[in-house]
């Protein structure tokens, strides 16, 4: 009997009219948890009922607490007929189960109905009294924290990173039960929503148990997915990384040293630059490093952070005791031995993290991926998870062996996905093979001298690029050179990874979003034949996607891809491949050669001319891109000999040749013997098309950048304005003459136009960067392609480049003072705002003051009230910010990133994992498919925000829309959509506030007003 759940229903507002006669509603509420139900009194004739109920108490097992959602149903009382349901609220009480997260859930929740959408709001208070349970055989795992964030959460420190946890549960899909034929769509949708909520609770509990078994206390990078298999069932599966986390003390958390990661990575080296004395004893005192422990947010003492820099500064101060070139080999071997032992105990040495504590990642091998095609109707025992478990185990095994082949013992940035069409299912897994530092994988006992030296000797910023595999025994043909920054170790010519750019990596210029898009027609077929056809197509698709990525990367003048995500989607008559990644220029890797076009019939004069024309275009594009992304690597005198690859190996049309140095690409001549270029041989129209398509990608308009990683390489002066958005497009292909070419072009256009639209929509935010651009493709029907994009636009300061000489303290002081000035400039407004009960008065005041300031003659001023607003919009945005504090609805930010620019996350409140179904039988009346989905997505956002606000949070980080399944039947005027979203609810505090708090006590009272305002973006 370990828990008591207490629920109080306070009030409702904006309820729909349920009684046409009186235009009012007689509402009451049912509160259900598990099998127990309580009811409030009926509040007669009101659209804003005040129930103010007693505390409804549920005494339940903690197992149930974890599995079950709290169900709140609002109904309209009807004396004569059945009560009409107005809508429901599901509340996941999981955040209340761990001690550090939220203590109470209290707030206004939208009342949601699967047919009508949001219908008013209800104010609910939920509390949990948890009793300690020491039962060793318990089935619950209360207290294990879950994070969607794929890095160590900001206010925690990783003590140990245990490794991979996964779980999978299966159930019958209510939509496919016989009873579905006779029940209403609403009942069916609700059954489904409830079931999934229950299954995710169960899944989370089971994963929690595994974590406890591993003696961890948290799951980071938790990714939960649904597979709607149809007849064979509904699968909920999740993967994550078990960790032992330590909360950083709050005093440290309030030091200005806490920063958004973008700043951190720049500033840490600078901090120490002016006073190199601090590490004079650096490499020679390994003892010092014993105390040193990493965590992503640097919020411990000065001492330890200086030891951080020992690591990063070693290359500058010389190689210390020995060159890594000599010692690297044995070290590597030893290291490998040690880590191997640490990892061998694990079945799958996988990590869902994409960003790591410094020092964790030693080498990166490259992307590993595996796919497998399965037939769902061949599952023996569909209600049991065994078959799926076996499938996934098989794939993971494959990934593991791929990683081994690359000389790596672990896989990082690991993720899994499925694509289902009828009875065919493609299971995919991918990750980045890597060598890890074992120190984080075990308890602190192994911290030996060896490792320390290893760390010291590894030059920062390029270590991860060095090949982990054996040079003589390479798993794939690659061209190796000596590292361009340390010159000691070998590096490949290009590097593909699924992780974020490591914070210590040095890049030149900015990054950019690179996408490869591909369609392949396939014959409609049944079962086995279909699966075979798909299996046969897959390798070709993978290959072409890879080629496209490579070409585009070269065209951008870059040499590495981060955050690579390849999605293959299966439809009735086609396969779609979409790969997104962020290209960067890593200083450690060689300069990419250009792209050369080789004609097949060199004797034809006009053809030759055409080719040379194309070549020129390509060269121009490369030059332009280099300028655009500010890629200007220093010329390094070439002195090293790349390990010779026996022969420029020919892989179909793709020739790879020696790439040694890079002279200006523009100077490239057409001589075929030239050694530094990537040769594209044009032998047929297909290849022509390919080259053309390479050149059709338009760069974003000036002031815009985009990437699919957390942060944009090369930009670090973010300002605080963020705008998260979801955009969905469904395109119908004209059925005539569908060929691979037209299909490719259509798909390409669809994606390009979507991006263009985004740039246009967000033009008011320029200069800004679209971060974490996440494309999802699905093929809901024969001729329909659905593309869903979720991303966040973040503004940055173009002019104020981060000044390298300025130490952080100076900067923060300066910032504090400017903030202060700003505040003092409008002290009156701040005060009146916080007093004024009317939310609009401030805005007006600002307007007035703005226009009177600007010296408009008084007589004309007033008439301009209306006209003035667009003009003074700038004022509006900045000055009217304090008005927010008065607004009754708190602003909740949402972002797919793990941080909020310019702010410090002070508390994680728990995971948000929500699943909604919306259905309509009056599609036209709701504005067609667009109107329907637009409203639904807006409602989903609203419900996420409401839950976060009820937990006491003001933002969702690592937000992700994992599923958006949209089905329509315009003939029947019907549509249905399923959406699954998740993220971490957090409380954040603006950095400016933190600083002011510490430096500006007198005006501290104005804080809330100003803070509330700044959130309003």
């Amino acid at each position: 009997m370990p828990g008591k759940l207490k629920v109080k229903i306070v009030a409702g507002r904006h309820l729909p009219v349920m009684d046409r006669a009186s235009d009012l509603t007689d509402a009451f509420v049912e509160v259900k948890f598990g099998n127990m139900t309580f009811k409030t009194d009926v509040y007669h004739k009101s659209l804003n009922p005040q129930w103010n109920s007693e505390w409804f108490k549920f005494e339940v097992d903690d197992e149930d607490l974890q599995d079950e959602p709290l169900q709140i149903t609002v109904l309209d009382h009807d004396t004569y007929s059945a009560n009409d349901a107005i809508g429901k609220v599901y509340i996941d009480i999981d955040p209340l189960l761990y001690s550090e997260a939220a203590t109470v859930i209290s707030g206004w929740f939208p009342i949601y109905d699967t047919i009508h959408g949001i219908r008013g709001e209800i104010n609910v208070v939920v509390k949990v009294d948890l009793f300690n349970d020491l039962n060793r055989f318990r089935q619950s795992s209360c207290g294990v924290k879950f994070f969607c964030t794929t890095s160590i959460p900001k206010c925690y420190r990783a003590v140990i990173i245990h490794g991979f946890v996964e779980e999978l549960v299966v159930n019958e899909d209510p939509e496919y039960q016989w009873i579905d034929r006779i029940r209403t769509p609403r009942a069916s949708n609700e059954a489904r929503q409830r079931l999934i909520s229950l299954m995710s609770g169960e899944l989370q509990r089971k994963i929690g148990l595994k974590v406890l078994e591993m003696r961890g206390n948290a799951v980071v990078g938790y990714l939960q997915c649904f597979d709607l298999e149809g007849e064979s069932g509904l699968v909920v599966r999740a993967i994550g990384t078990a960790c032992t986390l330590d909360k950083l003390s709050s005093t440290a958390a309030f030091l200005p040293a806490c920063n958004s990661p973008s700043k951190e990575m720049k500033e840490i080296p600078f901090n120490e630059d002016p006073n190199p004395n601090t590490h004079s004893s650096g490499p020679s005192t390994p003892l010092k490093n014993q105390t040193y422990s990493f965590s992503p947010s640097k919020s411990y003492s000065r001492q330890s952070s200086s030891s951080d820099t020992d690591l990063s500064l070693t290359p500058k101060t010389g190689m210390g005791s020995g060159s890594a070139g000599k010692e690297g080999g044995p070290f590597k071997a030893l290291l490998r031995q040690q880590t191997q032992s640490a990892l061998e105990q694990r079945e799958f040495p996988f990590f869902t993290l994409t960003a790591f504590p410094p020092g964790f990642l030693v080498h990166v091998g490259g992307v590993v991926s595996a796919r497998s095609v399965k037939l769902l109707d061949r599952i023996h025992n569909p209600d049991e998870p065994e078959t799926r478990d076996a499938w996934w185990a098989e794939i993971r095994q494959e990934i593991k062996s791929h990683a081994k082949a690359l000389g790596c013992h672990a896989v990082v940035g690991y993720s899994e996905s499925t694509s289902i069409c009828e009875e065919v299912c493609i299971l995919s897994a991918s990750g980045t093979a890597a060598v890890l530092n074992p120190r984080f994988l075990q308890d602190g006992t192994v911290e030996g001298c060896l490792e320390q030296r290893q760390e010291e000797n590894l030059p920062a910023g390029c270590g991860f690029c060095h090949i982990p595999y054996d040079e003589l025994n390479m798993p794939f043909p690659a061209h190796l050179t000596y590292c361009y920054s340390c010159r000691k170790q070998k590096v490949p010519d290009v590097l593909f990874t699924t992780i974020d750019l490591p914070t210590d990596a040095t890049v030149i210029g900015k990054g950019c979003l690179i996408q490869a898009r591909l369609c392949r027609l396939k014959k409609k077929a049944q079962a086995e034949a279909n699966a075979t056809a798909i299996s046969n197509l897959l390798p070709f698709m993978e290959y072409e996607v890879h080629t496209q990525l490579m070409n585009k990367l070269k065209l951008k003048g870059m040499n590495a891809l981060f955050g690579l995500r390849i999605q293959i989607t299966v439809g009735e008559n086609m396969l779609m491949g979409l790969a997104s990644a962020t290209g960067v220029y890593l200083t450690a890797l060689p300069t990419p050669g250009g792209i050369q076009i080789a004609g097949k019939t060199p004797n034809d004069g006009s053809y030759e001319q055409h080719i040379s024309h194309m070549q020129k275009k390509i060269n121009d594009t490369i030059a332009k891109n280099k300028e655009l992304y500010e890629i200007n690597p220093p010329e390094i005198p070439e002195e090293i000999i790349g390990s010779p690859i026996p022969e420029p190996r020919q892989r179909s049309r793709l020739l790879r040749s020696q790439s040694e140095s890079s002279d200006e690409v523009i100077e490239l001549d057409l001589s075929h013997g030239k050694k530094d270029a990537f040769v594209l041989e044009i032998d047929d129209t297909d290849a022509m098309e390919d080259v053309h398509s390479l050149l059709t990608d338009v760069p974003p308009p000036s002031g815009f950048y985009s990437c699919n990683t957390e942060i944009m390489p090369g930009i670090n002066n973010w300002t605080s304005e963020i705008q998260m958005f979801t955009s969905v497009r469904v395109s119908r292909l004209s059925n005539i003459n569908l060929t691979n070419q037209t299909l490719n072009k259509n798909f390409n256009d669809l994606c390009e136009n979507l991006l263009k639209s985004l740039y246009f929509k967000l033009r008011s935010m320029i200069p800004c960067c679209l971060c974490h651009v996440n494309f999802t493709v699905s093929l809901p029907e024969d001729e329909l392609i659905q593309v869903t994009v979720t991303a966040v636009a973040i503004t940055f300061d173009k002019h104020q480049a981060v000044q390298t000489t300025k130490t952080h303290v100076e900067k923060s002081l300066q910032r504090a003072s400017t903030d202060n000035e700003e505040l003092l400039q409008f002290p009156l407004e701040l005060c009146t705002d916080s007093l004024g009960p009317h939310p609009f008065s401030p805005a007006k005041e600002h307007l007035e003051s703005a226009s009177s300031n600007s010296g408009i003659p008084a007589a004309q001023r007033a008439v301009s009230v209306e006209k003035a607003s667009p003009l003074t919009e700038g004022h509006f945005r900045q000055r009217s910010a304090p008005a927010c504090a008065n607004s009754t609805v708190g602003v909740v930010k949402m972002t797919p990133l793990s941080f909020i620019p310019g702010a410090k996350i002070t508390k994680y409140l728990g995971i948000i994992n929500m699943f909604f179904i919306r259905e309509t039988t009056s599609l036209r009346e709701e504005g067609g498919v667009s109107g329907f989905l637009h409203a639904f997505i807006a409602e989903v956002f609203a419900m996420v925000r409401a839950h976060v606000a009820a937990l006491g949070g003001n933002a969702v980080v690592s937000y992700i829309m994992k599923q958006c399944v949209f089905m329509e039947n315009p003939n029947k005027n019907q549509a249905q959509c399923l959406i699954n979203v998740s993220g971490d609810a957090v409380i954040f505090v603006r950095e400016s506030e933190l600083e002011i708090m510490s430096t500006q006590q007198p005006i501290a009272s104005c804080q809330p007003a100003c803070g509330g305002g700044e959130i309003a973006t």
Partner: protein
Amino acid sequence: MTNELDIFVGNTTLIDEDVYRLWLDGYSVSDAVGLRVRSGILEQTGATAGVLQSDTMDHYRTFHMLERLLHTPPKLLHQLVFQIPPSRQALLIERYYAFDEAFVREVLGKKLSKGTKKDLDDISTKTGVTLKSCRRQFDNFKRVFKVVEEMRGSLAGNIQQHFLLSDRLARDYAAVVFFANNRFETGKKKLQYLTFGDLAFCAELMIQNWTPGAVDSQVDDMDVDLDKEFLQDLKELKVLVADKDLLDLHKSLVCTALRGKLSVFPEMEANFKNLSRGLVNIASKLTHTKDVRDLFVDLVEKAPGPLGSLHGHAAQLPPAHVPRLRPRSPDARPACPLLGPAAKGGGGRGIPGQPRSSPPRSARSPGPGARTSRPQPPSAPGRLPPGPGSGPSCPVEWGGGGTGSRAGQGNPAPRGRS
């Protein structure tokens, strides 16, 4: 390949002010796209027409969804579906409730009924405002009217509270409601020269001085209807024309008050009898609903005087005064309400010097000769002409200062009691 579905949803709802304006103006999506293309946005941003189309559709869809909430602005503040910064919410509401001068002049004083709504096509053709926009404006009037019609308390205050409008706009709506409720005829050709600002100014003064709310701030419909008792009392003003002594007394009082403050003082003085008679005649008939409706027509038609020839011919006024007579800004609007009649009325009865110095409503001091009971004819000069001080006769007081708030200015004549 066609896009069947194309949406963009931001965590913070994106609002493009230009598109909002086009939507409010009632343009269809394709017209709006055309207008945007012509504005040169494609060249500025390098976007394609397709992008613009999609963007416009998206905004229109958002506005369409917001419209339901805009009908009850407090809901917009409390709803959870659209996260909109307060300054933007204010902008949305203010723009949604803004109306066209041309349109409001057509509808002002008409019953806000279905019948009038049917005539909106004609109004649309006549004014050049799209039918859609006309409908929105008409529905706004009607909605505001319905909500505040039976409410206690200050009319403008109620409107502001329930529709979260700016002070300025709330007062304009108060005028619209007041006119609609009393059905004042304003559409006659003779009245066409009056702007909405002129009439709104009159409405404001009438609300302040002629309604039950002027005497008691806690009655129903206090600002919406005219005070019946007061209109009844006005009949007694006849004595001012009939009784020679009183006429002379009245004249001397008025002339004393106005001397040196009126540019047309000599004419006023010379014609005082005629002026007074005309106004008193109008005043005494106001007990009949029909005559109330024709108040403005009568003032223009039947109040004779030296300025009669200036009716509707602002251009003939001394050039120096003209700029001040045109409504340059909301605050400047009072400059010319009821150009002619007000001047005459003002000349005859008002105390033009009073307006600016008159105390605000709350601290009203008894006017000259005030009594504690119902104001008697000689003591109620300020009540009749709504805008005595605002005529061309005393532009100095009005045109010059735009800084003072209207609350202070718009109280030309102290009521007889407090």
